């Protein structure tokens, strides 16, 4: 019973972070209608940014994650305005393979310039845990989860209360009309894309205390991210968070009775099942 | 005359919206029936339901003796009913004749299908454009091309969705002649949606009127055009 409770706690804490990692994917699809297959590479970018900041200054990756958000966001916005915006009226093939091509470009740029070695951080609280009624609440998980929740709340405020958020939602719903009101479609979309990639990069910084980074780390997370986003409904930011928690729980509970290597297998089966049964997700499209 | 299409108390709902409400009518073999109604009355929904894109919540649809509601569109097409698309849905990366052949190869070899396709194009007067791409056709030509493709499915009844929308009176008369000829030679029945009264009155032996998903009239054209319910539907209260 304790181990189930432990698994649930771990699942929820991890899941909140998965939610923030995947919410960017969901946002991009909801606003721009494209599936960014290279989203996981922004996780990698975020992890590296936070790592380098920690390596140079000793600043905790959770703080570094905010810098990662900016860097990941800037790269994303740039890529959108130069490249990705052209797929809006292109074929399905183009829409898929532009971002698929980016996977190789981003991964191998990292490989060439940063090398293939795994890098990790050392923080004071890395191996500590709080004991709550015999359930060990891992400190790095808890801190990451808290940061994730804070950012989610900020995101929600941004989308619903700020001018940028309104511009994003307006452009998503009716671009022609928004342009008539003076909203620059390209700028708004680039910012929206950047926000999406930035959030995933933030997630990267936040998990660094308990995960290591190397150029290919993205491929470990890609299906997980998509499962979370699709589960919650591509386009629903609230859904991504709920989806994240559900996925986190599925993952950690499945390790109770499956060999560790198979925890992702359970996830993939769930993913395909969701796509088959309810592709619009459990909380179907809120922003689109 | 045998009944080719029998629509029995068909209702269609989209969530809470009732798109079709107890629609009930029959079409006989070789009959030309017009379908009119204000915008949003449910004409396109009816067509989509008849060819199997939409499933009725209640009621049944029979094509001759076969019950077809709930069947996939390709099954219904092979049984003998298909429709044209209002915004034309020709296959953009195939030539006109290949478009028509696609429907024909369902029941014939590629060689035979080519001959059939040429014949269908001929019936609508598009033979000279057989090797053209759909993008090079005018909108009226595309509408006729859809008719040709529909003919290639060897239908017993054809549902035409505003194929004469962009035509001049002269062109309209030509198309109406072609349709009458097809009906006379092949024995195909037609259910035609048109907004031009000239086409409806000129072609239809019978007219159905749909309003808010309900069939409010079913009779010969001159009767229907004087029906007070129909006039109210189109012009509002106080005009009957």
């Amino acid at each position, binding site marked *: 019973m304790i181990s189930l409770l432990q698994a649930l706690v771990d699942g929820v804490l991890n899941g909140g972070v998965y939610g923030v990692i995947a919410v960017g994917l969901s946002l991009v699809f909801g606003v721009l209608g*494209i*599936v960014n297959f290279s989203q996981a590479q922004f996780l990698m970018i975020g992890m590296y940014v936070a790592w380098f900041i920690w390596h140079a200054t000793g600043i905790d990756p959770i703080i570094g994650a905010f810098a990662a958000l900016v860097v990941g966001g800037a790269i994303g916005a740039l890529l959108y305005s130069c*490249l990705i915006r*052209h*797929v809006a009226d*292109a*074929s*399905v*093939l*183009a*829409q*898929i*393979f*532009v971002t*698929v*091509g*980016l996977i*190789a*470009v981003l*991964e*191998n*740029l990292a490989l*060439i310039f940063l090398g293939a070695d795994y890098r990790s951080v050392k923080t004071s609280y890395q191996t500590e845990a709080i004991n709550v009624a015999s359930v060990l609440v891992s400190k790095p998980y808890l801190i990451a989860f808290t940061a994730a929740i804070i950012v989610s709340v900020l995101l929600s405020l941004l989308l619903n209360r700020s001018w940028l958020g309104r511009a994003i939602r307006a452009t998503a719903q009716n671009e022609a009309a928004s342009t008539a009101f003076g909203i620059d479609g390209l700028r708004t979309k680039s910012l929206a894309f950047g926000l999406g990639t930035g959030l995933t990069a933030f997630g990267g910084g936040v998990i660094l205390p308990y995960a290591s980074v190397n150029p290919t780390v993205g491929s470990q997370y*890609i*299906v997980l991210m*998509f*499962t979370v986003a699709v589960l919650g409904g591509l386009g629903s930011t609230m859904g991504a968070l709920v989806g994240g928690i559900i996925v986190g729980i599925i993952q950690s509970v499945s390790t109770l009775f499956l060999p560790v290597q198979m925890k*992702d*297998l359970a996830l*993939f*089966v769930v*993913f*395909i*099942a969701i*796509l*088959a049964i309810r*592709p619009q997700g459990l909380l179907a499209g809120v922003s689109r | 005359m045998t009944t080719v299409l029998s629509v029995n108390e068909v209702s269609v709902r989209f969530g809470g919206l009732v798109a079709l409400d107890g629609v009930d009518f029959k079409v006989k073999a070789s009959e030309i029936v017009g379908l009119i109604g204000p915008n949003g009355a449910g004409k396109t929904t009816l067509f989509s339901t008849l*060819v199997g894109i939409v499933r009725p919540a209640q009621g049944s649809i029979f094509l001759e003796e076969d019950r077809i509601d709930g069947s996939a569109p*390709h099954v219904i*097409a*092979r049984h003998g009913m*298909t429709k044209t*698309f209002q915004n034309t*849905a*020709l*296959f*953009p*990366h*195939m*030539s006109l004749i*290949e478009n028509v052949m*696609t429907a024909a*190869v*369902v029941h014939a*070899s*590629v060689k035979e*299908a080519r001959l059939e396709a040429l014949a269908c194009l001929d019936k609508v007067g598009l033979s000279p454009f057989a090797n053209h*791409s759909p*993008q090079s056709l005018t909108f009226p030509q595309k509408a006729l091309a859809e008719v040709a*493709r529909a003919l290639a499915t060897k239908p017993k009844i054809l549902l035409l969705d505003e194929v004469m929308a962009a035509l001049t009176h002269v062109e309209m008369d030509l198309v109406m002649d072609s349709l009458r000829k097809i009906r006379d030679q092949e024995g195909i029945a037609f259910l035609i949606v048109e907004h031009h009264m000239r086409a409806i009155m000129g072609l239809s032996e019978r007219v159905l009127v749909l309003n808010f998903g309900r069939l409010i009239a079913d009779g010969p054209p001159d009767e229907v055009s004087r029906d007070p319910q129909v006039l109210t539907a189109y012009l509002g209260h106080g005009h009957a």
Partner: protein
Amino acid sequence: MKQALIVTVLVALGSLVAGFVFDANSYPIRVLCIVLLTASMGQAWNLVGGFNQISLGHSAFFGIGAYVTTVAQVKFGLNPWLGLPLAMIASVLFALILSVPTMRLKGPYFALATLAAAEACKIAASVMGITGGPQGLSVPFVGDSWAMMQFRYPGTYVPIFVGLFAISSIVFAWLVSSRVGYFLRAVRDNELAAEVAGVATFKTKLFSSIVSAALMAVCGVLFAQFTYFIDPETVFSIPNVSIRAALVVIIGGVGTLVGPLFGALLIIPLEELLNASLSDSVGGLPPLLFGALLIVVVLLKPAGLTSIRVPRMGGRKS
């Protein structure tokens, strides 16, 4: 199409001749074999990708093919020629099972589902005992043997790879010019209109994915027999198998008969050249270049790099 067929036949014949003329153990011959294999993998992908069913999971079929014959050889002593039909059947079964949840999915959703399925296969192969786990399996080396589909030097493999290439091209050409070809093109252009016109769209898509899966499995089998060693990371690799197969087709010309060949002829020698002349520290350059090339082609010349010289199938200029 006629020009494309002629080019295909010439390349096949030319390869056979090269196989006899060049030293069996030479590097160019080895590259030739890989080009033919990659072109065939591309052709398998082309059967579905060329008709708008964009799959990112073809590595599943490749890996299943490679593992079925290798496991059959290692554990049961089954000759790979007999294992080949088994590999095809296993691959087709997987395609059938996968079709149930994925058939109604469109575009990126479909691609995502195939990606997940391929990743699932990779994991399954890593944890199952019978597949040798993450360390992989070796094909037992018996020396030159037609019976066991293995030879000491690449040169002797050339006829087999030419055969694979020829079969994959014939299958594609036949499929496209048959009645099914019309259905596939119609489903690609407008699935709803095709359905209303009488095309059984589900059956059509299923048919092409089964043929594609079977052909891809054969490629996997030949890969195993050629390289003597398989492991989950290699044969179920998304970038090196799934995306590679799509890459050569997209660059060469999607939906065309010779697209995969031209793509392979460009990519493989280029990759070998770069790997040979660059130091290890920039080992990521070829994949980087190919990723960039993929993006450029897809945005600027979606009909493939060869669309300028080689007429598209059907001879229609759009």
